[in-house]
């Protein structure tokens, strides 16, 4: 498989300014040395609690926020690896076509004054498809791809339900045949019965067109349905990354274990004894010493307070940032 994206040591620190002259008093380490890669046709999910840095990571990759450090290597159409983190605006433009985004809120991400055909056609027009007939044909084909009737072409977004709007957003993202789509909570604003349709649509499009997804989500149930691999983030760092089945059935980081056990299972006969984490996510401007997770970790020892664990591969494709990863036997959720 060819690699589409290779993120190395990505960092994003937001300054905290104080006082009259905006002196920088401290930094929020929103993303702190994050590395991962995504292959063509693959879905990698970033999961974690709010404030863990998953959204900031995805925005750095699209250069919607400026990374503080690290490399974001993206393979372009010509097969060259380009470092997105260090490109200027002009250099970014041709790459923007190949990396697209699907947003969370289908109500605020579509311009209410544009028709559906204008919304989907705009990226085509901007990228030089000036022939109206050609553009319209492409827009019609895209609507077909996301299973919306062509009769909707000249309607405005307000006429559509949340699920239909999300389909329009997907069609727009697909317009320029991107090789990577960043989807930040694409189904969390949708009703359950509609969510299933959009999840399936995204899976089908990926199988057909070989798009890579970076899927940012907090809902682990949805994540299980879409991902090939999952990265769990905590206070700006990846604490565990593994193939989906391995992460869910045999997590190796205590935080992954706690996250999984907190997910309500839709079966009253499986009211499990959950591991309830005390306290809240650590403050990323002054994270705890040693392992960031140690104040909430039920397995923490004295060593965890002083020593910072590295992300270490413990099985092929399965890496963990925990000092006790080898000795702990943790509980996952079995499939079925």
């Amino acid at each position: 498989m060819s690699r589409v994206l290779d993120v190395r040591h990505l960092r994003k620190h937001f300054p905290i300014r104080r006082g009259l002259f905006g002196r920088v008093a401290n930094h929020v380490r929103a993303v702190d040395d994050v590395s991962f890669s995504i292959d063509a046709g693959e879905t990698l999910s970033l999961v974690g609690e709010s404030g863990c840095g998953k959204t900031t990571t995805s925005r750095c990759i699209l250069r919607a926020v400026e990374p503080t450090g690290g490399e974001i290597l993206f393979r372009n159409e010509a097969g060259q690896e380009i470092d997105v983190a260090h490109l200027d605006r002009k250099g970014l433009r041709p790459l923007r076509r190949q990396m697209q985004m699907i947003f969370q809120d289908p109500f605020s991400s579509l311009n209410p004054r544009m028709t559906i055909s204008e919304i989907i056609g705009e990226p085509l027009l901007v990228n030089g498809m000036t022939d109206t007939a050609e553009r319209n044909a492409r827009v019609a084909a895209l609507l077909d791809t996301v299973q919306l009737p062509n009769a909707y072409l000249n309607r405005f977004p307000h006429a559509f339900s949340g699920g239909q709007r999300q389909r329009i957003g997907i069609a727009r993202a697909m317009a320029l045949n991107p090789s990577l789509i960043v989807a930040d909570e694409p189904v969390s604003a949708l009703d359950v019965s509609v969510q299933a349709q959009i999840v399936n649509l995204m899976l089908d499009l990926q199988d057909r067109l070989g798009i890579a997804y970076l899927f940012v989500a907090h809902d682990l149930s949805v994540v299980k349905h879409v991902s090939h691999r999952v990265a769990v983030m905590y206070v700006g760092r990846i604490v565990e990354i593994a193939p989906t089945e391995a992460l869910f059935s045999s997590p190796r980081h205590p935080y992954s274990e706690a996250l999984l056990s907190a997910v309500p299972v839709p079966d009253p006969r499986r009211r499990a004894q959950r591991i309830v984490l005390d306290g809240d996510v650590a403050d990323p401007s002054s994270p705890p010493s040693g392992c960031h997770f140690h104040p909430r970790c039920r397995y923490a020892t004295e060593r965890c307070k002083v020593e910072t664990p590295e992300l270490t591969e413990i099985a092929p494709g399965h890496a963990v940032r925990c000092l006790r990863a080898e000795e702990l036997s943790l509980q996952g959720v079995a499939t079925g």
Partner: protein
Amino acid sequence: MVDPILQVRDLHTHFFADEGVVRAVDGTSFDLYPGRTLGIVGESGCGKSVTARSILRIVERPGRIVSGQILLRRGDGSQIDLAAQSPDSAEMRTIRGGEIGLVFQEPMSSLSAFHTVGNQIIEAVRLHSKLSKKAARDRAIELLAMVGIPRPAQRVDAYSFELSGGLRQRVMIALALAAEPGILIADEPTTALDVTTQAQILDLIRRLQQERQLAVILITHDMGVIAEMADDVVVMYLGKEVEKGPVDTIFHAPRHPYTRSLLRSIPSVLARPRDRLATIAGSIPHPFARPKGCPFHPRCPDFMPGTCDRDFPKEVAIADRHSTACHLYAS
């Protein structure tokens, strides 16, 4: 079983807008028992929140209760029909907060940013009792400790924006229970929270319920939360109650095609990775364009032309405490 503390009988709450009438709640009936949790589940527009607001008589204009009864059993054994009270009456004001507590979804917007959390709880305590300011403050600290807030004696002077989402939701629960109501209505209490915080809050609600024999109405769109928490379940779709029964029956022997489809379409951590989900065709209709007959018929896999698109199905008893409104089961 003991007598129900609240009985809702054929409740209809409609909204009279210029564009037409929205029948937000259109014939809901259920019983609520002390020490038990009733889960009301459904997707957007199903009327679950309006049902809660109707019970508390805080439905906003142009909405109002058109018909039905909401019978509340009070401490002295008497019964009062909340649907027949004026929303602004002194009676309703003692019942709201005093006998029925409410927890909303959004703890940020339902707490005042201008008063400390302590002062807000003190106000609620003093509204429903004759405690002195000093005693009410002690009571507020006690309540904060009860909902598991660390260092309650200091946190009592905090403002809501100084607290995390989970702590704010704990404050909301302390506030709702300040006057020791017998009923707690929790409207999507954990939807805005992370899954780990959600687990903490659900645990807290369960613990308080056991300690105080609270009757809880839990309103949510999340079938997982229902499975974890509810004893009895009401499934709603577009203002109509489509199925109700004990939680185990709803999940393991559902009858209504909507309940069945909904259960099949929810993603689960138990699924195989990359498994396609079962889908329900179409989307939820706009409330002004509610389909005739059974509101689910355009999306229903078991649609029977000439029947389902003509009349609304009557409620059919399947077993003790289990009933559904579907033409498939009409005798």
